[in-house]
């Protein structure tokens, strides 16, 4: 429990200060780092607001895929380990069904990550990878 301003408002204020006050007077060799710092403040502000819901969604989707519950990070790693093929042998066809089910679920989780890290990156704009 803290008084106002909120953590989000403080991080946005730090980002504004870095971009508008610090950046113009900064040595060119450090400007990129200042921009990165400001951008990270905005990312963390969005993360604080969005991640609790996103984490719950990821956990539910991943739990269904791997067949048991757990922390979302552990389920994410377990799914990756199961789906990673051998470096030489062809992928195990017994896992095709899991891979097919995982694709849309993982894409939804990645979209939630982008909403924090790079909003708009997944908006169709004629963009083809």
């Amino acid at each position, binding site marked *: 429990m803290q008084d106002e301003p909120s953590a989000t408002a403080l991080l946005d204020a730090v980002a504004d200060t870095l971009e508008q006050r610090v950046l113009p007077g900064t040595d060119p*060799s450090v400007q990129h780092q200042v921009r990165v710092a400001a951008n990270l403040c905005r990312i963390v502000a969005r993360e604080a607001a969005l991640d609790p819901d996103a984490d719950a969604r990821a956990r539910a989707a991943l739990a269904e895929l791997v067949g048991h519950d757990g922390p979302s990070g552990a389920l994410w790693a377990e799914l990756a*380990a199961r789906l990673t093929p051998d470096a030489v042998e062809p992928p195990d066809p017994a896992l095709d069904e899991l891979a097919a089910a*995982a694709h849309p679920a*993982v894409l939804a989780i990645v979209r939630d990550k*982008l909403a924090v890290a790079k909003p708009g990156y997944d908006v169709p704009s004629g963009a083809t990878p």
Partner: protein
Amino acid sequence: MTVAPPDAAVLEAGFAKALVDAGWTDPTVTVGATASAGANRRTLMIEIDSGGTTTPAVAQLGGIGLNSLSLAVEGRVVALADAAGMAVAAPLASSDTDDAVGAPFLISRRVDGLTVPRHVLRAVAERPELGATLARQCGTALATLHAIDVDEVPEIERLTDPTPILAYRRRLHQLADMAPPSPAIALGLRWLAAHPPEPAPPAIVHGDARNGNLIVDEATGLAAIIDWELAHVGDPMEDLAWLCLRCWRFREDDRVVGGFGDLDDLRDAYVEAGGRWRDDAFRWWQVARTIWWGLALRLQAQAFVAGASTSLVLAASGRRTAELEYDLLVLIEPT
């Protein structure tokens, strides 16, 4: 952690000696500003006076990174590309030892032009025909590189055993074993295993030809392709796919080639200059290099997490991984 700048007098003497060894007459070297200082390398502006003329040049100093070439070997590969007629910054002298100036170095002719991607894209926005010209010139340049006999460069890595496709898959699996896990990457690796393209004869691959490693003249277009430290022998379509990845379009997503050009211009020029365009290999390498960059970002972030680096830029890589995961999942989306 950057390469420390050695004393200017030591550099000037060491560079001059290397230039004499390369056939220059009584060269005098003047070291100017540091153009960039990265994790492994430092780039200095220098002037070479010899026989009454001044030659602007750049000197790169430093060691080698993961899977990258030494500066002297890099110089030999660029010299081959130069001799074949490709637009490059011609190498003038090099050293593979620390003896002369305290670090290995490569001196190259200075090529003027834009290199920062947003500057290149701003020039293209002002003069749209520049974008098509650039895309065509990239196609011609890469076809010229890929036509070089691979036996002419014995020292660079051959990612060809038993085929470039299988060798690169093995490389990706090695990186994936070191990086924090991702089901998106795992799905990408499954796709690669299931969709091998028809093989083609191996060629010299630049490895990092993309917007950011192009020197662009606003009037005439492509002046040089630089930064050859990832050059290797492999599948030529790797270069064309990497040039066209979304992460090098800098939000100009509808212009597939580096954010400045159309795929047709790149492909037509590549084929006209003797290159063999393979659609299935183009797609395979788009997926493979998207996985590679996604893994590289994960490893950068891991270096920060493990305490091996305090770089904020590396830390921020941990919030860029989703972009590559997204691009990858769209590339392999079942149709």
